[in-house]
């Protein structure tokens, strides 16, 4: 009498959801890369470098937003430190990218430029294995999730919740930023990593590489949505939402909230790490600024704007806010933060359920 797993998965989304995802896949996996690679630059249908990179970047942000929605929208755990997991994934992949430069750096040394500059003679022990692509992929997954697991274990075991938890996560990302700012930490100090040349021997700035990274980001985003969707409609997801709404009742019917929170928290951090690893080769730089408290707050704003507890809302939120940001920071650079603040206040006051909530209201009114 057990329903096969694949069938359960198919039932996880309404038909319209699958159609939308198929459409998204066709555009991001086939159409956009093809228009970028095979249509000559002079042609009006050509998709430029700028668009491909910006698109890839925003999709990485969208992955982070979905990961954030899993813990905040469904688990009721507001994290204002998710940037740290994103940055850790980015740094883990950045180490590999630095090693791939080989002797093509400014100092033609085997060591990354910043180490030569600091007069270091050899790689620190924790850089061991960073030249291996496979090991790097493992690190990308393991480092953010391990940090999240340990941090989460102590925080959730002590039953730290709500605003207190949010403040501690802010402190976590701030402390990590200060640590990474130091040259002695061995991650390039305030300059971080940059001047990347290759991935697996292929030129990182080539159109083919850009298209590949773009498509990969889209693929990971879709997988994140699917996994997220499965998690929230499974019994696990219903328990998670129950913990959000009435934690003591959950405990008294025999579930231990610690393990439930810890799992979603760790999965969320891991997704952020993957997003960070995809982000760094596309923007070509990673520095401790990614761990600044303001960055993590911005992630929460994407989710709030799109609509908490909807999965698709955060994708829309991340897209909208970043599209605005791209425009605003060029047109009125000094007003961007004011605008962001106003947006957050406005959404909280008038759109508590975000853009998705607004859409639902419009649709309901149309029917009535």
């Amino acid at each position, binding site marked *: 009498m057990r329903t096969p797993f694949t069938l359960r998965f198919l039932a996880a989304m309404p038909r319209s959801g699958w159609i939308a995802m198929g459409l998204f896949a066709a555009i991001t996996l086939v159409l956009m890369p093809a228009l970028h690679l095979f249509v000559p630059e002079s042609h009006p249908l050509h998709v430029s470098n700028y668009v491909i990179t910006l698109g890839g970047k925003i999709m990485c942000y969208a992955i982070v937003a979905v990961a954030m929605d899993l813990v905040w929208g469904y688990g009721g755990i507001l994290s204002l430190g998710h940037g740290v997991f994103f940055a850790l994934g980015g740094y883990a992949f950045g180490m590999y990218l630095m090693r791939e430069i080989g002797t093509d750096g400014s100092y033609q040394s085997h060591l990354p430029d910043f180490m030569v500059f600091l007069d270091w003679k050899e790689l620190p022990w924790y850089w061991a294995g960073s030249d291996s692509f496979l090991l790097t992929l493992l690190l990308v997954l393991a480092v953010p999730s391990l940090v999240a697991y340990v941090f989460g274990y102590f925080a959730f075991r002590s039953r730290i919740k709500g605003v207190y938890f949010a403040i501690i996560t802010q402190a976590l990302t701030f402390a990590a930023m200060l640590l990474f700012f130091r040259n002695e930490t061995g991650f390039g100090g305030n300059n971080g990593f940059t001047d990347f040349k290759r991935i697996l021997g292929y030129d990182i700035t080539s159109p083919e590489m850009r298209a590949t990274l773009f498509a990969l980001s889209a693929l990971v985003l879709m997988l994140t949505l699917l996994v997220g969707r499965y998690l929230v409609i499974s019994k696990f997801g219903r*328990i998670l*939402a129950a913990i959000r709404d009435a934690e003591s009742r959950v405990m008294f*019917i025999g579930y231990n909230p610690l393990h439930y929170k810890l799992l979603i928290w760790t999965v969320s951090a891991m997704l952020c790490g993957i997003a960070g690893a995809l982000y760094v080769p596309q923007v070509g730089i990673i520095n401790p600024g990614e761990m600044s408290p303001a960055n993590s707050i911005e992630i929460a704003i994407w989710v709030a704007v799109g609509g908490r507890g909807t999965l698709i809302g955060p994708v829309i939120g991340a897209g909208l806010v970043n599209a605005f940001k791209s425009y605003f920071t060029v047109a009125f650079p000094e007003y961007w933060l004011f605008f962001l603040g106003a947006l957050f206040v406005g959404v909280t006051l008038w759109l508590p359920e975000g853009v998705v909530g607004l859409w639902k209201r419009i649709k309901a009114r149309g029917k009535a």
Partner: protein
Amino acid sequence: MNSKPVSVEAENQGGEGSAQVVGHVLQPGVDISHKVILYLEDISVSFDGFKALNNLNMTIDAGELRCIIGPNGAGKTTMMDVITGKTRPDSGTCFFGQTLDLTRMTEPEIAHAGIGRKFQKPTIFENHTVFENLELAMKTDKRVWASLFAWLDREGRDKIADTLKLIRLDQEADRQAGLLSHGQKQWLEIGMLLMQEPQLLLLDEPVAGMTDDETERTAELFKSLAGKHSLVVVEHDMAFIEQLGGKVTVLHEGSVLAEGSLAKVQADQRVIEVYLGR
């Protein structure tokens, strides 16, 4: 993890084949071989100097239906907190059956061992449907991995359907629980308790906010549960307690003031002074 609330000694002893000689093997689950399901001995709890419980002694027999009354601040809710692991007593022992020391177990472990609790204010999952509320409460493997891949089978569905009928919410199965009336929420929480299949039910003011008709049906339900389950009911509603007809314990200032049939405690001069007379 909430998987093994019980010691594994049973298996060890069984392996030696000495079970019949010894005559008493530690069984997994609640050991009610002495006909008692709950022991509270010399329990004291104080909050900032205020003694919420003061050398409280009480035993509940297996299958018993016990009512607890007492003025506000007598320690009724604190007592439930101690039994369910929410509050650790400063001193005293609290045993579930012969073997389970409740003062050393966490809330989920205690729930898993077979104690269900209904709160004073109905506490249900307001954003879930009535059906889902019962589903989540259902007795099953409640660890994370099991929940990730759990899928409701026919047997589970039938169980939920039976409970829905029992608590008269079968028409509301797909409604959001937050939209129920107060009385219905009380019933839903009782239903959730039953889905847990606990051996001991702690019910804190279960009929508050119910109509007379609902109260009467609740009394009938509780009476039908006694025997198979043990129930501890905290109530202020004397008519309801009379309907239940079980033994009554009067708490006052954190300890037991009187115990016996409702008629007996109502006739007790001290009880009249501290509680009923007011």
